[in-house]
């Protein structure tokens, strides 16, 4: 009956209820009593309207938010890839700086791996973006520099651990971090 009175009963179920109510005085009385009770409560519960201050605050917020998207879309779409590159470069450079302050080589390697994987995971479709002069090359150069500084450069100058006979250390363990930053930068 509650569901029916709330408009939530339709079709055969609603028809079945009405049929039952026609034959059952007790249920009819119960339904009427519930209706009177709800009406009594609705008529006597505290009622009111939001204050002018609250309404004005909502109005201002609504207007501010309605205008906000226009400002966002007004930003030149062509500059977004450049901004994304700049943000990415800042992120990688910041991460590299943090790495340089760390001591444990294993931790540094792991963090470097994380940074590089972040680089690789960036979704960027070149066909959809305008060209940004030199941005790709700058990014690759920075990545090479990071690798070189960390002794992970993929060339003959890389300073890798030579696996020892007892093979206690994993083959990728960095033996030396003696490559000065300045020297590393001259290689890229």
């Amino acid at each position: 009956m509650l569901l029916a009175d709330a408009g939530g009963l339709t079709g055969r179920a609603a028809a079945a209820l009405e049929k039952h109510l026609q034959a059952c005085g007790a249920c009819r009385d119960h339904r009427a009593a519930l209706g009177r009770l709800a009406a009594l409560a609705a008529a006597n519960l505290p009622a009111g309207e939001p204050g002018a201050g609250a309404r004005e605050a909502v109005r201002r917020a609504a207007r501010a938010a309605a205008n906000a998207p226009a400002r966002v879309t007004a930003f030149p779409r062509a500059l977004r890839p450049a901004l994304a590159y700049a943000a990415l470069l800042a992120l990688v450079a910041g991460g590299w700086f943090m790495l340089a302050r760390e001591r444990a080589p294993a931790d540094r390697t792991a963090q470097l791996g994380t940074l590089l994987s972040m680089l690789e995971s960036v979704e960027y479709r070149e066909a959809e973006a305008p060209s940004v002069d030199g941005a790709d090359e700058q990014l690759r150069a920075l990545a090479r520099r990071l690798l070189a500084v960390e002794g992970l450069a993929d060339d003959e100058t890389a300073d890798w651990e030579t696996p020892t006979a007892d093979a206690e250390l994993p083959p990728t363990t960095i033996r030396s971090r003696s490559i000065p930053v300045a020297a590393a930068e001259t290689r890229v």
Partner: protein
Amino acid sequence: MTDNEVLARYRRGDADALEELVEKYKRPLFGFILNMTEGQGEADEVFQETWFRVIRAIGSYRQGNFLGWLVRIARNIVIDRARRRKPEVSLDVAPEAGRPLEETLPGKEPDPLGRLKAEETGRRVAAAVAELPLEQKEVFLMRVEAELPFKAIAAAQGVSINTALARMQYALAKLRVRLRDENEDV
């Protein structure tokens, strides 16, 4: 124009569209909030916070009962505030809450006896509703104040329709006992 059409206008930058919805739903929404809080001041805060959240989340709203969504947000705000409140403060609605002192005193209008009786009835109804368990009070107010269908009430509470119906049934049964003296018909 449907609520979704008005919302679409707002998303396109028509600020007046949201004000139409605020105006349309201010009474049922505020009626629910007022009976779930402790007076006009707190109700105003919850009311505006509800709309602030609506504005922030307007992009995530798809289809359905918009008033139900409003009440659901308001309910969450009320619960959050109750959790933050100090334990010694009652979470129930005070019968006199939100009413200026002079309004609680007998007036000078004709038939003061009738007015006193009506006020006493109002106080007892409010007190009876306030004493309901929280979940039952929510269902009762969503149905009576906001006139939400049980489907929307169930969604707002995160329960099945059967559970919402059962809570309403319990609420009505308790109110019936409490208010039998007020009206022998109930």
